[in-house]
């Protein structure tokens, strides 16, 4: 390699060093530490305890339940999501933008809130209580679909929107019926987006924590909740480690698959955004499905709001007023309002961290590579930074708890630990929002700026900044929303005197008392409202890659 090549690679590594170091200390180390506790009990390698867990009958049941609910959740998300993507991205539906934004709200709603909303909806006293779905796997699957429809609509819708309509027209002109056009032209063109959306949804379903914990209870556990149960209640670290390894393997395979199939359109290709087509009568089935998807998104939220307004004697704002208290029979260490302040402060910290890291990562992975070594390094880094997407937040949280208590890295009492963990959870989403935008900047624009006498900084200001500032803002909003709702890792790391709102909600749900339950619902509504506002603001920025993986 010549000197210029060496310098390029050195520059690449210099940019990468901060995010790599952060990820190594706050992600790899804890996860490895957590696995080490299980596989090296008493200091020497002894996987027998861990292997024993895998042969337990309950483990097989947990695994089977995880796979079936994830598969069902994925199938349901696709069934609802594909027609909805078509309707909201290709048809001239009035208010399509607002509806797309509303569908995104469930995706960022705190998992705990979703769990509460579904229990409120399906519980004995709830409007759909007569279905008898409360505490059944169907409820879990419904909640998973509720969450993930937005992922399918986003990912596939974005691909669909920029899909050139002419091949489909060419097929129609050659005599293909609309159904034949879909099977022979449109679906093959969308397949990468569909498969990658499906694998990401499967991943989210398989690692879902808050929803399953609140809806499935002890009877229906997934691998993720089982890890939580084994570590916190049963203190069976070997079992937890074994399950973590198992989950990590499955996730790594899925991520690899998603990575391979992810639509990698040529960023320099001309994007055609065809004008939305007027609605025809033949679109009725798709419109009905879209209506169902919107209902599924709206009804649980509406039920939640209604429940929060219910008081001992009719309806009122009592539950909201009670948010200034610590709940009945001293359920909480601090009032909910203070927890909200903590949540907002934490989210601000997590946001700047993840955006800073995400921007560095996005710059590193999107610079055009010269030479094979550079390309290998880049794609390796790209995969590395996607890891937090797949590793169980519970594993991460617990790992941080057990590894960061030694000497140098005693950060357990630091107020920055929770934001750091949340920033890592949000990091893949930030990268996925920014990377396509940076990649879409034609490098010749920078070369043109350079040839006109602009230095590297100047050309960054002139060429990249105008393109990137909106996605950057959108990514920040998205990270903020994710941080507000994060529960899996936070559940381990929060400090008693500074809990976040999701933590408080779970705490309230765990304490008996009508007042506490009402307060939990009210807190959930407040959290959902803040999150929804942030997401709607982000949606106004109209960045297509937000929420598309």
């Amino acid at each position, binding site marked *: 390699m010549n000197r210029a090549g060496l310098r390029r690679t050195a520059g690449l590594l210099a940019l990468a060093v901060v995010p790599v170091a952060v990820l190594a200390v706050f992600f790899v180390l804890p996860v490895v530490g957590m696995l080490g506790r299980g596989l090296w009990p008493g200091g020497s390698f002894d996987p027998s305890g861990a292997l024993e867990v895998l042969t337990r009958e309950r483990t097989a049941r947990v695994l089977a339940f995880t796979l079936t609910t994830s598969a069902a959740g994925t199938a349901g998300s696709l069934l609802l999501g594909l027609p909805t993507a078509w309707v909201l991205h290709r048809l001239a539906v009035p208010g399509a933008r607002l509806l797309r934004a509303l569908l995104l709200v469930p995706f960022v709603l705190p998992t705990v809130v979703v769990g509460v909303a579904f229990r409120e909806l399906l519980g004995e006293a709830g409007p759909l209580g007569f279905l008898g779905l409360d505490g059944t796997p169907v409820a879990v699957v419904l909640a998973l679909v509720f969450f993930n429809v937005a992922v399918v609509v986003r990912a596939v819708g974005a691909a669909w929107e920029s899909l050139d309509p002419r091949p489909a027209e060419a097929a*129609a002109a*050659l005599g293909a*019926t609309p159904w034949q056009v879909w099977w022979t032209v449109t679906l093959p063109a969308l397949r990468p987006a569909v498969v990658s959306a499906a694998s990401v949804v499967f991943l989210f379903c398989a690692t879902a924590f808050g929803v399953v914990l609140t809806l499935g209870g002890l009877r229906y556990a997934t691998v993720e909740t089982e890890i939580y149960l084994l570590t916190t209640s049963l203190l069976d670290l070997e079992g937890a480690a074994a399950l973590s390894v198992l989950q990590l393997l499955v996730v790594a395979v899925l991520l690899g698959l998603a990575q391979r199939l992810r639509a990698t359109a040529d960023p320099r290709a001309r994007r055609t955004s065809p004008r939305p087509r007027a609605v025809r009568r033949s679109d009725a089935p798709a419109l009905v499905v879209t209506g169902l998807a919107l209902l599924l998104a709206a009804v649980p939220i509406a039920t939640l709001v209604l429940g929060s307004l219910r008081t001992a004697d009719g309806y009122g704002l009592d539950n909201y007023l009670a948010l200034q208290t610590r709940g009945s029979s001293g359920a909480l260490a601090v009032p909910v309002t203070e927890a909200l302040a903590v949540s907002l402060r934490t989210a601000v910290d997590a946001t700047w961290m993840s955006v800073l890291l995400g921007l560095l990562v996005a710059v590193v992975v999107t610079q055009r590579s010269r030479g094979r070594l550079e390309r290998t390094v880049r794609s390796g880094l790209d995969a590395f930074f996607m890891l937090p997407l797949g590793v169980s937040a519970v594993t991460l949280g617990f790992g941080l708890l057990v590894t960061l208590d030694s000497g140098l890295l005693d950060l357990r009492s630091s107020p920055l630990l929770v934001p750091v963990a949340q920033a890592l959870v949000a990091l893949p989403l930030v990268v996925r929002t920014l990377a396509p935008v940076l990649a879409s900047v034609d490098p010749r624009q920078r070369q043109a700026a350079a040839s006109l006498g602009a230095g590297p900084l100047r050309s960054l200001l002139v060429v990249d900044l105008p393109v990137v500032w909106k996605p950057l803002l959108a990514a920040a909003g998205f990270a903020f929303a994710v941080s507000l709702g994060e529960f899996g890792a936070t559940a381990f790391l929060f400090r008693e005197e500074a809990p976040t709102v999701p933590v408080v909600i779970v705490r309230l749900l765990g304490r008996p008392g009508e007042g506490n339950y009402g307060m939990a619902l009210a807190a959930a509504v407040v959290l959902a409202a803040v999150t929804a506002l942030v997401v709607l603001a982000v949606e106004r920025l109209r960045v297509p890659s937000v929420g598309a993986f």
Partner: protein
Amino acid sequence: MLQVQGLSVAYDGVDAVVDVDLSVPAGEVLAVLGPSGCGKSTLLRAVAGLEPPRTGRVIADGEDVTGVPTHRRGFALMFQDGQLFGHLSVARNVGYPLRLRRRPAAEVAERVDELLRLVGLSGYADRLPSTLSGGEQQRVALARALAVRPRLLLLDEPLSALDAGLRERLAGDLRQILASAGTTAVLVTHDHEEAFAVADRMALLRAGRVVQTGKVADVWRAPADADAALFLGYARVLTGHPAYAVLAAGGLVDAPAVALRRSALRVAGPAEPTRLRGTVLTAAATPELARLQVDVEGIGRLDAVSPAEALPAPGSTVRLVVDPARLAPLPHAERRPA
């Protein structure tokens, strides 16, 4: 075969195609010629059923197909850039319309072979479209469009994405392939040479309206107005006295205006009688002839040609003769008659 009656198409309330009447007899090729943005692609899409017309009818073989969806019209549409399906091989692209109609595999294979031979691409069956050149892709697209013997073939600028030499060669091939298949076709293009090379009849479209129709040679010889003439490749339009002087020099009857090709005036041989004289302003040699700009006495600046080997020097005086086959008298003096 095809009749278009009073067809109008509007985008967002703005008319792109206005009250167009066309008719194409079976087996003929009609070229719709117009500058970009004149609505010719919209017209073609409306005929194909891809755009709903605001008013008017499309009639094929006496049957009104205006409300019939695209895939039931029995037409085939070939796009400017072919629109081959990238995930299918050449043979599967060509066989696509046959498989849609559930023809037996053996018949499909046979017909695909035949079509690839027709377009001169035998042996390309297993290639993917992305490995073909632009011209080869267009040939495959043509074979695919012809596969089910459509009653009408619609061609949207089929050659304009190609470079000049290839375009010329492929235009000849296209003409021959359409003739040997006996296909009725409508071709839209902005390139008058493409229209001449491929079509039997021509319709000039401007701002969404048809301004002239007729046999290609007739339209060419007698453009309807000055804009039509300029669009058909005439270099200059003269009116008033200069028009009269040029027409008289060519031995033609008087007309309000005349359109001249660049080669309408030629430097006269020593023995040729002529009425026109001028001073050479510029002279440029090309491999075949010399192109001059001459300040012609009593007329003004005009284009002229001379044999390449006798390049007159700028400033010299030349005598000029008019070639009546290379000019067209026009019925109106104003540029854009109402």
